């Protein structure tokens, strides 16, 4: 009797698992839900949930006449590179996902991208801007522009707006994103303004809380502005400490500033500063506005660039699945199908703008310069297209 029950249970379990695998589209998210940049993970999950609700509300994604509900699995990479590798592997091997969205920050996306490429699973990082994430990796994609493009955008804008000749740079040494962008910026700036025009080029570690020595050194070099290619969690304390040390000049930031949490941490110090990013919520139109309104209604705050890019990344994956025309029950075949069709998308009209993809799976798209208003809102200042 007991044996019979167990046997039935096992049978039911096997059948349900088998049935599920055939019916759903499983996508994994190795994202930073805790650690240094938890708000980034939150934005990713919220945007993904919004997309899932919308599609599953219609019975699922329609592929070749059949409807397949979406199944999303979120794993926490703790904002650490080594954890990003671990959870990416877990999603690939245990959960058998057909595609991955994330990690977001290049610090995690560069190593995780390597794992996905080795295991032949398509991965799209919505937010990573470091070239190494996709370089020489046919299975890895992204939805954001690249740092070699972002650096001249920042440099040109600062030259024009602040009439700047001398720049100081402060960056995080162990972060691929921060370090890469700082190096790119330095090269561009010194090409434009001559050698030695980057008057201070300072770094700090991933766990540092006091930056007074680096800031003192930067201020002493009398820069026209300080460039902080940093995560928002560092940009905020650095700006506060610089003001305490008597610095009155402007700051300029990069896309990692654009979190909904920046203003909570930074207070008045960030007001009036500029940063380059992927989209500006204020003054958006069309599909972008529709997304912002839906997000705001559900979660009570304006979506940041990570949320918008996640939405676009999912859009690209779902488009690729639709283009494939059928869902293969075999995970390995399905992964290949998704990748080939993702690579086949030559241009995509997303809510963060129109993008076309080059041979390295990198999008070519416009960047936006955002000004932080006195109310703490991210307002549109300028759009720069390649």
């Amino acid at each position, binding site marked *: 009797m007991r044996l019979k029950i167990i046997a039935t249970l096992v049978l039911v379990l096997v059948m349900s698992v088998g049935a599920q695998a055939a019916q759903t589209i499983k996508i994994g998210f190795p994202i930073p839900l805790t650690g240094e940049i938890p708000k980034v993970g939150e934005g990713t999950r919220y945007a993904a949930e919004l997309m899932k609700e919308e599609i599953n509300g219609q019975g699922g994604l329609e592929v070749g006449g059949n409807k397949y509900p979406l199944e999303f699995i979120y794993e926490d990479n703790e904002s650490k590179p080594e954890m990003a590798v671990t959870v990416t592997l877990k999603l690939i091997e245990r959960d058998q996902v057909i595609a991955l969205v994330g990690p977001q920050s290049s610090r995690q996306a560069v190593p995780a991208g390597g794992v996905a490429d080795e295991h032949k699973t398509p991965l799209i990082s919505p937010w990573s801007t470091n070239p190494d994430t996709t370089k020489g990796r046919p299975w890895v994609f992204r939805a954001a522009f690249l740092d070699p493009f972002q650096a001249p955008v920042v440099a040109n804008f600062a030259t024009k707006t602040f009439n700047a000749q001398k720049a100081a740079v402060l960056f995080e040494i162990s972060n691929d994103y921060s370090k890469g962008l700082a190096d790119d910026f330095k090269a561009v700036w010194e090409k434009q303004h001559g050698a030695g025009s980057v008057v201070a080029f300072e770094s700090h570690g991933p*766990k540092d809380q006091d930056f007074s020595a680096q800031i003192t050194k930067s201020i002493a070099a009398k820069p026209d502005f300080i460039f902080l290619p940093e995560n928002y969690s560092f940009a905020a304390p650095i700006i506060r400490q610089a003001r305490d040390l008597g610095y009155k000049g402007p700051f300029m930031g990069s896309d990692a500033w654009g979190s909904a*949490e920046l203003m909570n941490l930074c207070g008045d110090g960030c007001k009036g500063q500029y940063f380059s990013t992927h989209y500006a919520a204020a003054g958006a139109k069309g599909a972008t506005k529709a997304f912002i309104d839906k997000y705001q209604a559900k979660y009570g705050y304006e979506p940041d660039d990570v949320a918008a890019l996640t939405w676009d990344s999912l859009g690209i994956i779902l488009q690729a699945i639709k283009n494939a025309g059928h869902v293969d029950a075999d995970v390995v075949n399905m992964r290949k199908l998704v990748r080939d069709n993702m690579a086949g998308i030559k241009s995509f009209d997303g809510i963060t703008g129109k993008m076309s993809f080059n041979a390295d799976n990198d999008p070519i798209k416009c960047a936006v310069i955002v000004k932080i208003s006195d109310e703490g809102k991210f307002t549109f200042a300028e759009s720069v297209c390649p």
Partner: protein
Amino acid sequence: MEVFAQNIVNALQWGSFYALIALGYTLVYGVLLLINFAHGDIFMVGAYIAFFVSTGLLGMKGLGLSHIQVLALTIPLTMLLTSCVGVTLERIAYRPLRRKGAHRLYVVITALMCGLILENGNLALLGASRRTLPEMLDKVVYSIGGIAVTNVKIGVIFTALLVFVVLQYIVTRTRIGMAMRAVSWNKFALPLMGIPLDRVIVFTFMMGSGIAGLGGMLFAMSYPMLDPYMGAMVGWKAFIAAVVGGIGDIRGAFVGGFLLAFVEIMVAAFLPSTFRDLFAFSILLLIMWRRPTGIFGIAQTTKI
């Protein structure tokens, strides 16, 4: 020259935090010969308590408190509540082990675990989002001969000095201080002299945690960003500072804290900042070579 002077001020502020945390390590070690590795996390808990107390007080409009009054109330409340956390930890984690006569090594491991429990408990309870302490003191930046200091910085440096003086007085000049020194001398003979061992230990934990709470609050005022791991790194470094100064000695913790901060800041200021920790800790290693027991330390037969 200005840059150098500015960096001295920077180092004095940063060193104050190391010193405040190191004092807690050294107090507990001095009495129990226990390295309380949860201490950095008690510091973090102190910052969070300050956050909740101050937002709570500011939220109670009925009381009509001004910002300065809130600050004046938050300091003692934070210290009190944080010392309760420290005493609770002693009660539920360390005392049972001591009663069973466990080797000190196991108590140290327990302390490490307690620290992780505090960090992750906080993460589970309050989420990963960071918080900022409300501004209770209107920050003013003074510029004296090209050197920028804020009123908060001056407050921090003076508090650290004051805490050191008071602590030195308690330990060397009062009866309870004498009892504390006696515990570290001989734990077994002490009850025979009619000195309540547990009470002395509880008092030690209260003082250490209270100072950590004060430090956490001042830290949150200077670097207004609270997260569950904020105490881990600064805690380890403060422990190193306590060892370099000679663990178990209050002067050692104080001097060690400032020494570490000076080395860190000056290396970052005058050498490439990329190498800060490499150089800073190499210098400390050299000091340890010369004096393995630390600057003020006395050689003992057993240490962990």
